[in-house]
Every structure is written in structure tokens, then in C-alpha cells.
């Protein structure tokens, strides 16, 4: 599956890009995170939540093919 992945805040300091398309074999968020961890070796040290189609999800959530975002700790206000 091809998934659009967006990066924000300090995650961009690891990926050096704000958005890319990732090819995933497997059907869960955890499979995508596995691909990202092998691609970016600094990513495991970072604290982030994952949104799929703008809703927070867990590693066990199924990939539905819509936009994924890696969100570091919120700092609004």
C-alpha cells in the first residue's frame, strides 16, 4: 500500500522532509512505523502520536490508505 505520511515539529529534524509517500507491506499502523524506523534511525528516540485521517490512532489500528501524520508533543497556546 502507498501511504502519504506527514511530519511535524521536531520529527522533521529527523526526516528532513515534511511529507513523503511510503510503501508499506502489512495492514496496520505498526507495519508503517516499522518501515519508518528502519528508514530513520533517530525516530525511535522521538516522542510522537500518530494520526490517520486526522484522528489519533494506536499501533494496532488498521491502515485504511488515508493520510498519516506523526505528531510530536503538542505546544499550543
Amino acid at each position, binding site marked *: 500500500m502507498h501511504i502519504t505520511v506527514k511530519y511535524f515539529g521536531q520529527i522533521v529534524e529527523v526526516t528532513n522532509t515534511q511529507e513523503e509517500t511510503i510503501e508499506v507491506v502489512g495492514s496496520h499502523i505498526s507495519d508503517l512505523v516499522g518501515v519508518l524506523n528502519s528508514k530513520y534511525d533517530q525516530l525511535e528516540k522521538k516522542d510522537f502520536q500518530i494520526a490517520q485521517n486526522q484522528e489519533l490512532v494506536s499501533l494496532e489500528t488498521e491502515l485504511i490508505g488515508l493520510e498519516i501524520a506523526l505528531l510530536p508533543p*503538542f*505546544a*499550543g497556546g
Partner: protein
Amino acid sequence: MSDKKPKNVFREGAISSDFIGNSIYKHQTKTSIGAHNIFLGQVRADEIDGKTVAAIEYTAYEDMANQKFHDIREAAFEKFELTCMHIYHSLGTVKAGEICLFVFVSSPRRKVVFEALEYIVEAIKADVPVFGKEIFEDTSHQWKVNN
């Protein structure tokens, strides 16, 4: 008065005191209002390891953030008897001393505005994907985290 479509809550740069004053002025035609409560977030010149924060550079996952602001707004209108509610958040660079968050609630009665304002501000801090890069005077930086 709730509405269905998410508005854009974000403003480029700091929120000016003129903008806030003008927003207050516009509510003087709404004569069922008895109490306004306003929260303003201001960027602090915190000193960390001998370095001073000069500004915060805000970014956001804008579509999701505007949806979250909208959800918070709907939930607040549901829970509290509010006449109006306005939320504005900065994107981009906001210098120390400048305002980055403006939340404005109004109701016929005062008890309601106290409860509603705190509810909204806490929800914004917890649920909205906004990110803040604290830029020190020497141009180094660290990432802000809400507590």
C-alpha cells in the same frame, strides 16, 4: 451560536492588542451578554541554562487542528450556555511578550464564562496539534511541550 463548518482559527504572527480591543468593541451590540471572559497566552522570555527565549515559532497540522478547534467549540456550546465564543491562535513567529492565543467567551451570566473558558483552554492545550519551537537569543532552539 454554533456552526457546522470548521473555521480557520490561525492567524499569521502575533495577535495584536488592537485586534483584541476591537473584538471586545464588536460585542457591545449584543445586549443579552452580562459577562465576558478572555484568556490570552503570551510568549514568556524563559531563561533555560543561561539562554533566554526570544520567540516561539508555531507550526500546526492545520486541517486537523482546525477540526479539533471546531470540536472543542461545539462541545463547549453543548456544555455551557454561551452567547459567543472566539478562538484565535498564532502561526509563525511570535516574540516574547507578544500574544499567541486569544480565547473569548461571553454569556448572560458570569459563573458560566469562568467554567467554559477554563474548559476550552485546557482542551486546546491537550488536543490541538500545534507545535512550538522556542528560539533563543543566540538562534539555537528547543521544542516546547505543554504540561
